[in-house]
């Protein structure tokens, strides 16, 4: 006998997703995580476009993590043309990432994830009973937005982030004010961390064994290499050799595997891999948590996100300090196109992001490949869902459906 | 020059010309599809007693929440205590106005514009030519003249519109047609239904009615209001029939936003429709190329 459990419209996730859990004779037969988002052909529409247009176009892949797409594509173009940006540009890009994480993680934690654990359909409803909690979420988000607006030009899809740097730099006063606001938001982030640490997460152990992340001590730093929890290291040029993509008919996202296996990326993966490299103040906070890191419980992604929030704020303060003492450079260095291929990797809030572009000698794009975190997570989430269904085989369909949703949300696909 | 500037700056703060007065809707009448006539009374009774205007002038009507619109007054200043506006539902603000009911309060500034030169018209024949919604401001003139009938000589009213359904002020005009002291000639673009046949003197355009008017052109003032496209033809026909162009007055519709020559939207050539108009002698159309 065949039985199907479906969640046709996953809510409180960005984009459109659906899950089918298929049982046959009471045995789990198949799990399908479907992204039903219409295809947007980014690898195709970037073709024949001038290199300077690429970051702008691919920014539109995601409205929440646009900074990551813009930076990853800028890295790729700069790689192809052999451009090295000055320290000041790099620092501003890192500060931009601070803003992106504050916005994205706060949005996810307070508005998408938290209502599950507090028993509300959404944050709007939750605001009636817990106005201060929701306000705190808004406040963190607001600071993230402010940084992105200041450096990127707009809160969403800021056009100031270009190949070779920025069209213009912020003033020193503006940077100072960002530094002060970052300092003053730290108590709020500590409160966030203890709130998310205190929630009751379902018992769960993921069987996804490999964690992958860009080789840098934290998300605000950029790197050319990737490392995995089983000790493999590879460069951004080799990304497509290690992370293999395939198309499956039931989803518009492509499914990626590492050595034929699902793998974990994202906040939990990053915190697990780089626990020792966190800011000392954050490390101290972690030691006080009831959640133990490294953790194999995928629901702990939420705690990891809160850890990262606090960490980026501390890093942000450092970055601002360095920026204020940094040698003044032109905001954008000139870029000379040449034929070739470039690669860019970056830790987006949801996980590792990869862009590759090839160019003709006059700087027109001749080919592109973009591997998004969502695509790479698909196999891991499916594996976790299978695992979850088996762990919670005795609960009602309704509860199982709810647990599945919460699990998927923890990944913030 | 020096003196005049000093004078400008030394003026005391004037009564705010932008500040409207409240008025209540006392009656709403549906005249034709999308055409309604609203009757208003100022809430300030002392104002209601003294508020005066000239036929052809307009007011700036604040439709609450939607904004201000310029509307020609269609009642006659000879009748005090109320005023009427006929409005076609055509834009975002008039849509909201059409939802209002008796008892609702609006705000009004004005009257603005020059109005028809009724003083000069006195002692002469008057030929009134109305097309479509142009009947609204001219209704004001018609009643002004009829209420002071002895000051004017012969009066003609020519009125043309699409078909009977779109005729405004049906009953009123029917009664006018029976009067001896005004000659009414009506035309319709299309005569199809029995009502159309009963109403129309001819099937056709206003220009075809003009030759039927038995007035001495040099002794006649003409007031025209209708869709701008019609002016060219009506003007030509009037001139052909011998009416002097300095005695033909047309009323022009523009996008008035302030009513007092400050916002610029209603410029016609070098003139402002709101302060120099909206009534212009046909002679001006020669000098204001964008007039028609």
């Amino acid at each position, binding site marked *: 006998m065949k039985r199907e459990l479906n969640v046709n419209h996953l809510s409180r996730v960005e984009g459109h997703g659906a899950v089918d859990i298929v049982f046959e004779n009471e045995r789990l037969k198949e799990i399908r995580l479907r992204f039903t988002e219409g295809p947007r052909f980014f690898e195709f529409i970037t073709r024949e476009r001038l290199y300077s247009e690429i970051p702008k176009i691919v920014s539109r892949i995601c409205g929440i993590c646009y900074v990551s797409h813009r930076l990853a594509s800028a890295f790729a173009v700069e790689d192809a043309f052999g451009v090295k940006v000055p320290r000041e540009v790099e620092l501003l890009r890192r500060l931009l990432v601070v803003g992106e994480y504050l916005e994205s993680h706060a949005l996810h934690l307070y508005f998408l994830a938290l209502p599950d654990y507090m028993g509300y359909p959404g944050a709007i409803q939750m605001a009636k009973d817990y106005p201060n909690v929701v306000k705190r979420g808004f406040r963190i988000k607001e600071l993230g937005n402010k940084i992105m607006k200041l450096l990127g030009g707009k809160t969403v899809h800021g056009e100031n982030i270009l190949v070779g740097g920025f069209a213009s730099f912020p003033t020193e006063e503006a940077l100072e004010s960002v530094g002060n606001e970052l300092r003053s938001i730290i108590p709020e982030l500590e409160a966030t961390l203890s709130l998310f640490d205190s929630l009751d997460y379902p018992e769960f152990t993921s069987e996804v064994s490999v964690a992958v992340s860009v080789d840098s001590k934290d998300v605000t730093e950029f790197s050319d290499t990737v490392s995995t929890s089983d000790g493999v290291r590879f460069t951004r040029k080799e990304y497509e050799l290690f992370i293999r993509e395939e198309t499956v008919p039931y989803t518009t996202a492509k499914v990626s595997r590492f050595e034929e296996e699902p793998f974990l990326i994202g906040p939990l993966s990053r915190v697990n891999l780089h626990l020792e490299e966190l800011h000392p103040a954050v490390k101290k906070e972690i030691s006080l948590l009831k959640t133990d890191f490294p953790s194999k419980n995928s629901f702990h992604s939420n705690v990891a996100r809160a850890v990262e929030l606090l960490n980026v704020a501390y890093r942000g303060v450092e970055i601002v300090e360095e920026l204020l003492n940094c040698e003044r450079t032109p905001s954008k260095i000139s870029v000379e196109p040449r034929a070739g291929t470039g690669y860019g990797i970056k830790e987006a809030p949801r996980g590792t992001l990869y862009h590759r572009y090839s160019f003709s000698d006059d700087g027109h794009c001749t080919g592109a490949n973009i591997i998004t975190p969502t695509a790479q997570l698909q196999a891991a989430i499916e594996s976790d869902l299978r695992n979850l269904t088996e762990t919670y085989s005795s609960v009602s369909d309704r509860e199982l459906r709810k647990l599945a949703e919460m699990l998927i949300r923890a990944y913030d696909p | *020059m*020096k003196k005049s*500037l*000093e004078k*400008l*700056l030394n*003026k005391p*703060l*004037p*009564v*705010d*010309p*932008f*500040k*409207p007065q*409240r008025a209540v809707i006392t009656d709403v009448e549906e005249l034709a599809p999308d055409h309604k006539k609203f009757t208003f009374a100022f809430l300030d009774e002392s104002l209601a007693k003294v508020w005066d205007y000239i036929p052809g002038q307009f007011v700036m009507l*604040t439709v*609450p*929440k*939607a*904004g*201000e*619109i310029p509307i020609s007054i269609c009642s006659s200043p000879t009748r005090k205590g109320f005023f009427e506006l006929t409005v076609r539902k*055509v*834009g*975002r*603000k*008039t849509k909201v106005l059409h939802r209002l009911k008796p008892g609702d*309060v*609006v*705000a009004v500034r004005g009257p603005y514009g020059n109005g028809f030169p009724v003083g000069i018209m006195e002692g002469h024949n008057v030929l009134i030519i109305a097309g479509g919604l142009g009947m609204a401001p001219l209704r004001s003139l018609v009643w002004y003249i009829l209420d002071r009938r002895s000051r004017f000589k012969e009066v003609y009213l020519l009125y043309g519109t699409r078909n009977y359904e779109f005729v405004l002020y049906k009953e009123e005009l029917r009664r006018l047609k029976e009067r001896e002291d005004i000659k009414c000639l009506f035309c319709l673009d299309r005569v199809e239904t029995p009502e159309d046949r009963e109403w129309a003197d001819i099937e056709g355009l206003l220009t075809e009615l003009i030759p039927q008017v038995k007035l001495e052109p040099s002794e006649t003032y003409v007031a025209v209001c209708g869709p*701008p496209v019609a002016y060219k033809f009506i003007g030509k026909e009037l001139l052909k029939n011998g009416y002097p162009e300095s005695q033909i007055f047309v009323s022009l*519709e*523009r*996008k008035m*936003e*302030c009513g*007092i*020559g*400050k*916002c*610029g*939207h209603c*410029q*016609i*050539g*070098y*003139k*402002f429709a709101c*302060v120099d108009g909206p009534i212009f002698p046909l002679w001006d159309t020669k*000098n204001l*190329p*964008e007039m028609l």
Partner: protein
Amino acid sequence: MDFHIERAKILPKSNLWGFLEGLKGVAPLIAPVERGNKTVFSEVNDISDVTINYTRTVLPPKKFLVPYRRVRFTYSTGELSFSSNFKARDQIIFGIHSCDLHGISILDSVYLKESPDPRYLEVRKKTVLIGISCMPDDYCFCLSTGTAFPDGANWDLFLTDIGADYFVSIGSPKGDELIIELKELFRDIEREDLELYKRSTRKKKEAFRDKKLPDLERISQLIELEYESPVWDEEAKRCLSCGTCTNVCPTCFCYTSVDVPDFEGKTVKRVEFTTSCQYPYYSLVAGGHYFKPTRTARFRHRYYHKLVGYPYQIEKLGCVGCGRCSAECPAKISMVETLIKLRGADEKESGKATEQTSAGRSL
């Protein structure tokens, strides 16, 4: 010495900063400051930001008299009671060039002559205008428009650069009071100063000698008669209808007003925002008819209004020759070029005369 002039004083250049500091003590000070490669009028906290030798600001000082977006009224939807919580503040605008002073005098006529706008009047009464002399660049044509020198009395003080000093003309009692307040910074005029002052007028006029200037004699009639000229189409073809020319113009005043209700539906703001005759919607009436349907019609309208409309309405040209519209036009359309083209072959001939006639008018 019996030489004595009360209507003017001398401000040694070394005292200028003291003067600015003094002004700032009297009321909020607005002055030209550098921003990027441009100069803008801005409220100054630190007088060392003030720039004295600038050619033109992006926007004229008009923005401190008529803000580009302003709330005319707020009204309640229930009672329909209209209230304005607008309060004009005292302000001193320093460093206005002659063309812009003339621009303000034109705005004065527009706003105050008939149906005076009480809000403008209030602002204007509380504003002190201090002008400063300048030298022209390639876009300036104030000599043609007769606005190269500060005539009229809509300003309070005017500083003319005469070398080591500023020759400070006093235009109003308010200006006089400022001088008395800061009298230790000034000295009396001597005969030589007056000579230098007169020379400065000549110097500015000489600076125009090699520049292209339009002849504006009988310009109203010319524009009316050339209504059908192909020049309009030629120029308008390049026009982007972007509205820059009117937005930077010191005499443009058109606005649109919109009622903006709040969420509760309890109060409504009547917001006025600056607009431009170059935008198609400007002449669009409900029902969908454009009164200026073509780019040519809109383009020509600006010239028509400036050079025919203003003279009809306020007996002054609506152009003060500041050159902003040409300097800022993304399509590099030049008012001077258009006018020269319109005058056509006759231009060469009458161009010669320009110098004499304008000179006659300006002195």
